[in-house]
């Protein structure tokens, strides 16, 4: 170790890897991962959220977690987003591509992607 820059480089490299342990959880993205969710393709959606959040450098405030079945199996994969001052937003029939869009618009931009929400779905 010849300089503090080397130390900083290691810290930066590690930051993503330990952030998940320090997350404040101000925002929580909860993916339904019961049998119905998994069968409908929730796992790639979950992975897309994890990758997207990490890539955006938001892992210290946004926690991506899972939950069980919330009872609307025909709309799986279901994803719920809890933010501090907004009401819970429920997205349905999610895909990895939609996940990327939600990160860009909702998580980063604060704008709910209305067309994917449960309100927009025909029940």
């Amino acid at each position: 170790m010849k300089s503090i820059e080397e130390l900083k480089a290691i810290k930066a490299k590690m930051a993503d890897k330990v952030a998940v342990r320090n997350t404040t959880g101000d925002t929580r993205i909860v993916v339904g991962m019961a049998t119905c969710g998994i069968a409908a393709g929730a796992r790639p959606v979950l992975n897309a959220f994890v990758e997207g959040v990490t890539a955006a450098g938001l892992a210290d405030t946004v926690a991506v977690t899972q939950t069980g079945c919330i009872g609307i199996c025909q709309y799986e994969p279901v994803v719920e987003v809890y933010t501090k001052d907004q009401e819970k937003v429920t997205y349905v029939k999610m895909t990895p591509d939609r996940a990327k869009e939600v990160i860009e618009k909702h998580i980063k931009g604060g704008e709910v992607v209305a067309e994917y929400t449960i309100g927009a779905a025909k029940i």
Partner: protein
Amino acid sequence: MIRSHVLVCGGTGCTSSGSQAILAKLEEELKLKGLEEEIKLVQTGCFGLCALGPIMIVYPEGTFYSQVTPEDVPEIVEEHLLKGRLVDRLVYNDTGDAKKDDVAPSLNDTTFYKKQKRVALRNCGVINPENIDEYIAMNGYFALAKVLGEMTPDDVIKVINDSGLRGRGGGGFPTGRKWSFAKASVSDKKYVVCNADEGDPGAFMDRSVLEGDPHALIEAMAIAAYAIGSDEGWVYVRAEYPIAVRRLQIAIEQAREYGLLGENIFGSGFNFDLHIRLGAGAFVCGEETALLTSIEGNRGEPRTRPPFPAVKGLWGKPTIVNNVETYANIAQIILNGAEWFSSMGTETSKGTKVFALGGKITNTGLVEIPMGTTLREVVEEIGGGVPNGKKFKAAQTGGPSGGCIPASLIDTPIDYDNLIKIGSMMGSGGLIVMDEDSCMVDIAKFFLEFTVDESCGKCAPCRIGTVRLLEILNKITDGNGEMEDLDKLEELANYIKSASLCGLGQTAPNPVISTLRYFRDEYIAHIVDKKCPAGVCKKLLSYEIVADKCKGCTLCSRVCPANAITGKVKEAHVIDKTKCVKCGACIEKCKFGAIIKK
């Protein structure tokens, strides 16, 4: 892509309750479910809640599982890691609140953690101690970089002085002042030593730091070396701590590989390297001069001070000796400033202190609290109180060198000076809780037996005096005590205190003095009434069968190992007191509460 971390405690407590088997099973189950790319397993140091080990915590949710068994692992993997449902029966929740939105209460909201403030233990249970990168991710070695890049040795000593940090090993000597003495000593060679010879019965603060955050020690010792002008350090650690020793060795090797130990660290021209010396388990080697003698390869015996080690220490060279927990605070003080540290604690005792909670308490384990927290908060809130509905009687701090704090002083804020005022001492941080079933004379005897065993024998007051003290205590608990024995105890105790060579002898009578001070009536009960009020001292007990309650079931006579109980079926039985060995087996078996001890 890793989405979740599963941290399993690999400290000594959880290892002995089986955490290695859990790690192995987790690995197997993750592979089975194809989750090894998504979930990362991390073995950490101690979380503190040793009574409920093995401990596991799952991030990002921060779900805290306690008393996990290998049989629980498939369920945790299937339910929590695969499907995202908490395994409720294993979630630790002492708050009494129901979970919200399927989220278990955050660790910091639990009663056990709420009042704690983790500085020395900040990384224990958070990082993998065998991975230097994780330490660096938590700002590790940045304090060393700051010191070498921006500060002079005098700056460093000033910050430590201003912080008000005092030695965490027992005496409470101001750390900055110790360093400044060593810096002022002129010599071609100086040494930095870490005292990790944690010997108090029931104390394991230092072990947990070594096991959970070994790099914190290495970094702090390098900072100390820079401050006093040394280039070589020694860690004296007990051989009875195999996990701690192994992790420290791994950490030293990793630090060398990164050039954080060795020559020209951070290109500053500063050199420092570190060695480990294993202690063979003699309590006296925790005394600094005995410790240094032992590192030199000689029999661990203390010598007179002065000269203090800061002037003449290891191999006759100026040396500082600090305790593990003291070092564990250093990097944080450098990074956050003296003011941050001195904002915690009381007027004369700054910062936090780690305590090993043991004895008659619900949450046995490791806690770190700001100085000035009251004993009541530690025992009743963090510790979860005395189990089985028993009453708190006293707490012993400072181990065999300390004294007891009676229930009447439970609201005393814990700091160095308050504890000394009430006849105890901080010591290294063992805190043993006693309930109404503990006999205080017996407690004094227990600690004295320990010091009698561990006295090195070099000086007469300690070698002979402690044995005589113990003899008087034995006489009292055997029922042969006389009132004048109490005066003799006090007189002898004061002689030993004032005439012994080192801290071991000077503090050995403390348990006797403090129990005499607060529980003199118990001594008198032993001497005058020939009774042990707590029902502990066997020779003063007698067992009797209450004839009215005895149904004559014969169970007691069958379990009695001495054949002391006789009687016919369906008739009241009788205990022959000359044969009774007072083992208590009959009381345990009697279903009718017919047997009493007096």
